[in-house]
């Protein structure tokens, strides 16, 4: 999976420098569940950032030697029961939960349905319910990076605004007031919607982290904004790539 034909390859190199594009030896797993949609885009994003993508299957019983894991978006198990509820009990998820909570603090990123799976797994607090306006929403969304010290946001500036696609129906993040206050106090609100809240989420929250900052979940889709000409028209269109270069730099830094 390392030699993907890269759409817009030359542009990506020019925008981010050849140092990032070279393969670093870091391996980032991308999990596919029945009904996952965005695994291929996540794989492309990982490769564009300079890591080797490793395809993981939900029924796998081992994580292998991956340095980080992306749980991509889609409709795993058709969103039956609750979004992410059945996937949470997949054999690979128990391995991911253990690795994320271990001393090694495996970096885990959950995007959209992946975020829903992480809340169902209790790796992240709260839950998602249907958008307050009840419609499926697909748009380019401005986010503010509130915390750039997580494993997945180190390449952004604190307070930086980025534009990435958003597409979901069950995107309204909710938690009780005590949990929300704790998230705010501990700096674990990682992303907030800017300009307009597209789903009625509490306190405009778009994404959060666990206490250690290795597990991050968000509803919008950074993996769809990694190649110039194929991402949002506002901004560079590649403002999601920073998620993947951030974790890569962390992995490479930790191994030095």
């Amino acid at each position: 999976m390392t030699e993907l034909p890269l759409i817009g390859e030359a542009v990506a190199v020019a925008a981010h420098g050849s140092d990032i594009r070279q393969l670093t030896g870091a391996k980032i797993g991308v999990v596919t569940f029945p009904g996952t949609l965005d695994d291929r885009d996540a794989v492309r994003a990982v490769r564009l950032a300079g890591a080797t993508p490793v395809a993981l299957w939900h029924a796998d019983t081992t994580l292998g030697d991956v340095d980080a894991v992306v749980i991509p978006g889609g409709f795993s198990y058709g969103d039956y029961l609750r979004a992410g509820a059945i996937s949470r009990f997949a054999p690979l998820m128990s391995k991911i939960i253990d690795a994320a909570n271990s001393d090694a603090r495996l970096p885990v990123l959950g995007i959209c349905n992946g975020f829903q799976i992480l809340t169902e797994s209790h790796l992240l607090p709260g839950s998602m319910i249907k958008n307050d306006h009840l419609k499926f929403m697909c748009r380019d969304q401005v986010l503010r990076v509130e915390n750039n010290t997580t494993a997945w946001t180190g390449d952004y500036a604190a307070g930086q605004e980025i534009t990435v696609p958003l597409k979901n129906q069950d995107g309204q993040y909710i938690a009780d007031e005590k949990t929300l206050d704790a998230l705010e106090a501990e700096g674990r609100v990682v992303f907030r919607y800017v300009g307009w809240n597209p789903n009625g989420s509490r306190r405009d929250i778009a994404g959060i982290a666990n206490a250690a900052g290795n597990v991050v979940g968000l509803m919008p889709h950074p993996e769809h904004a990694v190649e110039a000409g194929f991402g949002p028209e506002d901004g560079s269109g590649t403002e999601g790539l920073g998620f993947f270069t951030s974790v890569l730099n962390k992995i490479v830094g930790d191994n030095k």
Partner: protein
Amino acid sequence: MPRIVVDVMPKPEILDPQGKAIVGALPRLGFTAFSAVRQGKRFELTVDGEVTEEILAQARNAAETLLSNPVIEDVVNVEVVEA
């Protein structure tokens, strides 16, 4: 074959967007007596044989771990129904 019925409802403090849509649609059909709707889920678990206390405990456990998400939902009823 006996069944164990599990009823799950959104927590009272959580706005139920689906219920809100339904209460908006009712008066358009002339059903004007209802001021609020909350939509929940009913699960029917079929048991081959007798429902023992152990099986009922399993059902309660399943209701709390898989059938509901305690962050947003309450298990409001677990009962045995004879077919």
